[in-house]
């Protein structure tokens, strides 16, 4: 199973509460550049939301030190102690959900903690679950296929 932050863009009113909550929670300041969720105006009163879907896992496959792992709930997380700050994960992220702040060593991303959900006045955010997919299994299968025979 994969736990993730489900985004209902059609309901978003663009208030930015989620962004403020998120950056306060993890960086102790209100700063959109330090939030793990991003809100972009899309014209005509609509908004585009960006946060990790926890499913594509390209970053998991790309990390040279396996600092990015998947929790038992299926959430993609960075281990700060292992991260060497290469930003390969930022480059391969297809949605821009993996972020970094210039000059800070470790990137950051949504870990589906649900703090923002509580502060959204429009019910645009939701913690949801979905099934694993071939895509989400790929990094583990690729590594297992290459691992030493004797260890299998």
């Amino acid at each position, binding site marked *: 199973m994969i736990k993730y932050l489900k985004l209902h863009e059609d309901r978003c009113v663009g208030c930015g509460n989620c962004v403020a909550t998120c950056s306060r929670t993890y960086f102790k300041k209100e700063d959109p550049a330090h939030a793990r969720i991003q809100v972009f105006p899309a014209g005509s009163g609509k908004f585009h939301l960006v946060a990790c879907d926890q499913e594509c896992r390209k970053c998991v*496959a*790309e*990390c*040279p*030190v*396996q600092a990015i792992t998947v929790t038992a709930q299926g959430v993609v997380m960075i281990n700060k102690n292992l*991260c*060497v*700050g*290469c*930003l*390969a994960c*930022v*480059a*391969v992220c297809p949605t821009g959900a993996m972020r*970094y702040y*210039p*000059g800070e*060593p*470790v990137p950051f991303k949504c870990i589906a903690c649900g703090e923002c959900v509580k502060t959204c006045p429009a019910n645009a955010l939701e913690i949801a679950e979905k099934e694993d997919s071939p895509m989400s299994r*790929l*990094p583990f299968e*690729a*590594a297992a*296929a*290459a*691992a*030493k*025979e004797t*260890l299998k």
Partner: protein
Amino acid sequence: MKAFNKSDFKLVAEFKFEPKPIHRGYAMRTLYVNVGDKVAKEKPVSEDTKKRFTGGKGFGLRLLWDATKPSTRWNDPENEIVIGMGPIAGNTNYPGSGKSLVVSLSPMTDVPIDSNVGGYFGPYLKFGGWDALELQGKSERETIVFIDSNEGLVQFYEEPAGLDQDTHLLAEELTHVFAKDAKDLQAVSVVSAGRGADHAPMSVLNFSLYDKRRQGVRVKQAGRGGIGHVLRDKKIRAVVCRFSGVKQNLNDAADPAAVQRLGLKLHREIVVNDDKQCKMRSTGTAHLMEVMNDYDLLPTKNHKYGQDPRGPEVASWVWEKLFSQNLPDGCWYGCTLACAHAVDHFLLETGPYKGTKVCVDGPEYETAAGVGPNLYVYDPQGILELNFYCDTYGIDTISFGTMCSFLMECWELGILNKERTDGIELTWGNWQAACQVLHDMADGKPFGVLAGKGVKFLADYFVKEYGADPKVMKDIALHGKGLEQSEYISKESLAQQGGYYMTNKGPQHDEAWLIFMDMVNNRIPTFENKAEALHYFPMFRTWFGLQGLCKLPWNDIEPADNSKWAEPNKVPEHVQNYYELYTAITGEPLDWDSLIRQSERVYNFQRVFNIRQGHGHRVEDWPPYRAMGPVFEDEYLAREERYDKQMKEKIGVDPAGKSTAEKVKITREYRLKQYDSLLDAVFKRRGWTPDGCPTPEHLKAIGMDLPEVLEVVNARMAGKA
């Protein structure tokens, strides 16, 4: 793999140092280790040395010069192996920033060799606060040097009984011994050689990296010039470095955000474009196989031909299927170009490890070409088998491939037979025979030991012992200065002949690769054009080795709009990245002129070093004729149309009615004259005398007029050296 405990290793001596943080890319000190006396000490780096020699290969050559004398030979105790990193080495953001540069007096060429290598060793060493490591002396017993960059410790251990000697086992065993625990395995890197390096000058140093996904050790090679033989001559079984805690910006960059920005820009370019360009992420440098075959540039039968209809049997798509995919195969953290691929679970069919499944590092292009088509081998099994055994025995795949193809041609010419090869049937395409030569090399058997000496030695030997025609031997033994040529056909590109043979270390492609520019696109038609290219490409490429950079992310990936720039073959946007990256890390400005100047100083220093060792003459910069044109009549006839056309258009002689022998002779005379003129033009452009000696004026102009350097050139110019 056998399991050992640290307690199995007898500690002989130990030295403590304060780990020193890097400042703006430099530690400003180097580590000196003597395995004979079992001492380690630190040496400061002066501001002047930093300014003049920049780092990496520059520091390496400086230290090697000071440690040796004009009379020093490769196997004297004072010869060193120096591993230098450079200011950019170890950054984790910009792809290709984990290279170490190894220098030593070469057993193959008798002059300094420099070899560029990935793996984690160099950066781990650097993070202990060292810009370079000198290994000097000779040990009585087999020694393991352990450097703990976290603890500031250098330890000398005696090798325990039963430790394996071939790299794929040795490096694995040592990684487990020197890691603190299972989580620490990636923090250990091992430099070792293998049993082949005990007997053969054509040997490598293997630099390991622990691959978490494969749960095993991988190796990258400091391949050229026989440094593995020097390591083994010193009775160093391995040098191990441990560092845990790699982070972004351990280089203490002046502007870490700029380092991130530049790295991320290139990561993105790679992610978007690589699949449409070189496919390095899925096939590595093996993507060149079909390109070279198509352009008649893929060495086939000892560089006699450049193409064969069987080429597609070992093309990149074959390797893509064999390589494990979707893995971040960088040789250092943050290299998203990730060309360091491997074939996993490969079942060996020959040799001592027959029947076991192993991970084969590679093949890279040079290996696939060298032990593939050049031996007329088109069986991936054979190429992989040779690749694996070369690596684990510590043998250079390039020298081995070129040497073995020479043997096979000698077999074809009737110079060799079973009596002379200890029963090995060296016919074209017989990869099992090539493997046997390799196994005999590792086991120290006579023919293996003989073969391991390289083509320069073999050519003389075959003349003396077997009455081979000295002219033919000279023509087809593909080496310069004693080093075997790497795997591109150079005979149709005069500029590339210069790119290979007007090098300081011998014919390795890392200085200049001008074939397309010259032969295919005809962009450098005159001698002056070629000389200019043979000035700035070697200078530009030398720069990578001063910084700790890999050359591949420079032009094996290009911005999508690269062609809109003037001089697209320089990849101007990437050159701009390098200026900015250098400045972001060191805080010093850089532009094209100062970049070239940094290289020129070291390049000329290396040339003078050759002179100091009694070499560096013009005659030593000549290729064997196989690298310049068709040696034999059948070789001419295979490309008759091309050669006849050239005779008419370029030489101004009508080939009609001439015998093939006459035409071979006319072509030869013309090409030799061309090369001679090119030497004149290049030496002039480089600021050297007609004999290839940097002039005092030139050395002054570039800031390499150190008294000890001037002393050597003055003596040479006065005819005294």
